[in-house]
């Protein structure tokens, strides 16, 4: 077990150095939510208490799932994957390492809008334990989604980026970020149930505003459910597609 965890940690460190802590990725991680923030806020009378849970949720979602989708196709193209697979690490350890890197990156970048809200807009965290729980499960869940999206056996990262944007962008619009869930029409409320980001943002609203549409328990359980679905299906699809990928 210790050897497997060591493999996961080494892969995560490798990913962080090679893929995440690069100027374009870092800048995009910060600039994209900032521009969303502007698009959101300018000309509208919106309370920071409503705004920041959405901004932090989007930042976490887009950063934790940002690089994961391209690691496997990129390593296939650069012919580093086979070398990695022949080391004493399993494909599961490699994928968990990719997930861990996205998980950490998502949390670190999300601290920026959080600090911005806490220091600049007087935001307060009403329940630290729920906040930490929500951020941890959400980041793990979104990072797992990123790795699931990388499972098609291609060596062309742009194909996966297209798929990734096709999945991730609509999620942003159905998760009660722009319009609170309670104000959505019935169809919108039903669709919002199928987005993991819905539960992250709802949890954050509870943390900052003290109110949420769903119960805290339901939000956490739904995040765990999505995490299990993304993790298990990602592992299975990657394992099934490995021979085709090489």
């Amino acid at each position: 077990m210790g050897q497997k965890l060591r493999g996961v940690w080494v892969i995560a460190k490798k990913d962080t150095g090679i893929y995440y802590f690069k100027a374009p990725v870092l800048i995009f991680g910060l600039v994209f939510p900032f521009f969303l923030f502007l698009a959101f806020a300018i000309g509208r009378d919106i309370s920071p208490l409503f705004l920041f849970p959405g901004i932090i949720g989007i930042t976490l979602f887009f950063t934790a799932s940002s690089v994961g989708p391209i690691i496997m196709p990129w390593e296939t193209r650069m012919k580093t994957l086979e070398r990695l697979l022949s080391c004493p690490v399993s494909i599961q350890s490699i994928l968990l390492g990719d997930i861990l890197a996205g998980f950490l990156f998502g949390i670190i970048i999300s601290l920026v809008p959080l600090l911005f809200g806490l220091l600049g807009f007087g935001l307060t965290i009403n329940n630290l334990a729920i906040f930490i729980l929500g951020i941890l499960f959400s980041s793990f869940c979104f990072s797992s989604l990123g790795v699931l999206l990388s499972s098609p056996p291609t060596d062309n990262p742009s194909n996966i980026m297209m798929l990734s944007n096709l999945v991730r962008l609509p999620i942003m619009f159905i998760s009660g970020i722009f319009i609170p869930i309670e104000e959505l029409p019935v169809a919108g409320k039903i669709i919002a149930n199928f987005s993991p980001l819905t539960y992250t943002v709802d949890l954050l609203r509870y943390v900052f505003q003290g109110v949420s549409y769903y119960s805290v328990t339901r939000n956490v359980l739904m995040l765990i459910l999505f995490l299990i679905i993304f993790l298990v299906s990602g592992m299975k699809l990657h394992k099934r597609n490995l021979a085709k990928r090489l």
Partner: protein
Amino acid sequence: MAWAIEVKNLTKYYGKLLAVDHISFQVKEGELFGFLGPNGAGKTTTQRILTGVIEANDGDAEIMGYNIQKDAFNAKSIMGIVPELANPYIDLSAWDNLMLMGQLYGISREKRNEKATLFLKMFELYERRNQKVKTFSKGMKQRLLLSMALISEPRILFLDEPTNGLDVQSARFIRNLIGELNGEGVTVFLTTHNLEEANQLCHRIAIIDHGKIATIDSPQNLRRAFQKMQSVEIGFATPFDRIDLLEKLIGVSKVKKMGDKFRLYTEAPSRVVYELTNFVRDNSLKFTTLNTLGPSLEEVFVKITEEHIGWDYEK
């Protein structure tokens, strides 16, 4: 007998395509074993199964007693691998690539540093250890890949086309190193297209064709087994083009013109030499060269793989 590699009934399908067809063979500890075959014969698939990269559909493979499918971690821990289609991380330095490998194999920091320094110096990469690999030539990348394979002090080394596309000096350096490592007791499983390389280095050679092992033997025995492919080569001092006359000589099965010489294929080279000397004398000719030649490994390979006679030979 201690087997370094023991393969039993190994089978791999890609969809409906049978890539590896129930193959079985063993490699002795300390042996330098060549694995040859034409493109698409199943060489790389077999090596990928043996190195735990992909799983077989059926059969078993043991590496130093560890089952590669059930005990992959221990099996992989004692291997060093240079896959054919592999690169170091080009965005990392040579040093960081070696550190990454060392960490994946669970080697202590002190030993990692010691081994990385040793191999980078041995492979003449030490001066450029902090440069990103994207600036390296193909030969330098290949030497780095070998360093990465050796950092864990493997007992068995899997090399897939290790000299493919390299300049003469780099290829020679790597060939010499393979020989030296094997001399130190490392078992080497060498997949190659280069028959001369296999001939020079390998104790035994397996030829795989259409997913089946066509034959396994020493290079010398393989050549000896193909007596019909022995030949006598003759060059004449004056222009001569009567190939039909040469074909009529006793013991000659086939004649080929090769440049300014003729190659007469036979099962009895001494008889053909005798016939040729009489022929030259009777026709008032002079010869410049007269050599008896065994079949080259290349000829044996082509014979086995093109005519699919491997199974007959083995039976």
